[in-house]
């Protein structure tokens, strides 16, 4: 894309951003208006005005919100195309925005659950440290059915993963190893506390419902059936929560720091420790400290890396700045991969050569 086209898109971005800001201000004004209307009605029952006003306000807010969402998506694809192409072209890799990794390729990494919806774009192919690779942006969604009090059901979507996945082909052949980042430090502590509090609340609610049910003659007649049913549900929930992949076992390693940062599953405990030597563990910990969360798996002759998205396409930043951010992010990701591959290759070569 040449400079003229870039400038054209930049002008469009600025226009859309101005419109977007105006729409947001309008939504804000309408919201404050509706809020004031409610307050005035509560404080002063003599306040006379039409009750159609709040409904019109809410309708207008919904329309403006729809316009805001439409504007968000209008240029997103064009900007997204612009932002990543220069980062990969600099590295002499093939780049094709329209293509991406297939769902099967992403699933073979065993890093992510099967989604209800999947999008991939910005496919790149090249070499890292002499090993061929391909990568693309991927977004995975899951859908939930929600039923409101009127019995109407609607589908909501939540993002499972939004980021970039790299697949590197190597000459090695290893049994499956899956390494996923855990929340660490303060985030880890907060997460643990929240989990414990939720568990206590759920247990408390469940126990009180159970005890209350047991005092009900209807349930007591068939108490043994209900207790059996509850036990089966509990076992199912525990199995679901742990959710280990078939054929994989959890593994804890000697480094407590490593165990704090990463969750590891493997098909072969000895093979795992041949690969995850203290040097490699140290490298992964350092990288995690530098670049943040990432996941990696080694399945057969492929190494999979999943990096969460760090750049979000917002209209408040000039496109050139987004391009620079993307270059920096891609550089960081590729250096991380290079660093890990070289550590693993060195270990492998060392074994083969007896060094």
């Amino acid at each position, binding site marked *: 894309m040449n400079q003229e086209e870039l400038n054209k898109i930049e002008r469009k971005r600025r226009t859309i951003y101005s419109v977007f800001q105006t729409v947001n201000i309008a939504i804000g004004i309408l919201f404050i208006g509706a809020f004031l209307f409610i307050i005035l009605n509560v404080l002063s029952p003599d306040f006379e005005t039409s009750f159609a006003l709040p409904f019109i306000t809410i309708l207008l807010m919904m329309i403006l919100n729809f316009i805001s969402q439409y504007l968000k998506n209008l240029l997103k694809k064009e900007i997204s195309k612009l932002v990543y192409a220069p980062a990969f072209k600099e590295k002499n890799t093939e780049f094709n925005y329209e293509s991406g990794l297939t769902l099967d390729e992403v699933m073979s990494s065993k890093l992510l659950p099967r989604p209800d919806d999947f999008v991939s774009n910005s496919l790149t192919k090249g070499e890292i440290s002499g090993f061929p690779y391909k990568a693309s942006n991927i977004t995975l969604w899951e859908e939930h059915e929600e039923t409101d009090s009127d019995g109407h059901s609607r589908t909501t979507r939540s993002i499972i993963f939004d980021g970039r996945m790299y697949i590197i082909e190597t000459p090695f052949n290893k049994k499956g190893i899956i390494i996923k980042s855990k929340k660490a430090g303060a985030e880890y502590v907060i997460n643990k506390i929240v989990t414990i509090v939720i568990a206590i609340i759920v247990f408390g609610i469940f126990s009180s419902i159970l005890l209350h049910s*047991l005092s009900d003659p209807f349930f007591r007649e068939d108490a043994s059936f209900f207790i059996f049913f509850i036990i089966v549900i509990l076992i199912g929930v525990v199995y679901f929560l742990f959710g280990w992949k078939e054929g994989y076992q959890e593994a804890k390693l000697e480094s407590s720091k490593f165990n704090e940062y990463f969750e590891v599953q493997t098909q072969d405990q*000895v093979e795992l*420790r041949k690969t995850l030597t203290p040097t490699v563990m140290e490298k992964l910990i350092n990288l995690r400290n530098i670049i943040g969360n990432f996941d990696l798996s080694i399945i057969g002759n492929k190494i999979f890396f999943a990096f969460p998205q760090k750049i979000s396409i917002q209209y408040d930043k000039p496109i050139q700045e987004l391009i620079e951010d993307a270059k920096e992010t891609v550089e960081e990701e590729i250096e991380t991969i290079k660093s890990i591959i070289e550590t693993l290759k060195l270990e492998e070569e060392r074994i*083969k050569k*007896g060094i």
Partner: protein
Amino acid sequence: MNLYIGLVIILVLIGFILVYNYVISKKNNVDNALGAINAELKKRRDLIPNLVECVKSYMIYEKELLEKIVSLRELAERSLNPEERLQIEQEISRILYHLKLRFENYPDLKASKNFLQLQATLTDVEESIAAARRFYNQAVTEYNNIIEQIPYMFIAKMLGLQRKEVFIIPEEEKVNINLSELLR
């Protein structure tokens, strides 16, 4: 009232089963890890005849060392006592270490493709042994922790489970051998 007592008994029973299974799984993990070490040691013992055959024509002055390693290998194969076998394997490790140091004195040997391949395989196996030992030590640490924690210690006492010792690396193996230096 009977219903509540019944419910409490069921919950205690479920708790007992979960704790029992957890202790057994940790115990079996230790046995599994020990099995992994033994499998790798067996692979190493199987390499020894090939290694001796390959080097004996070159390393004429190391005849005693080579004969010793062959006899130790046969002893390890015959031994049924795990502790005795462990002692023998440690002795084999010690002799292999000394043998590796002496490879440097035989440049003709270092030029042999057969020898280089064998050496690479031997190194690979020794790395597997080291990895298996790490697995074993981790399994033993988890097992020892479990049998000393409440409520697992009650099940452990019931089953007569005792603390196990972690694998201690012999002094020779603690020294990092830089074979590229040795083979120069």
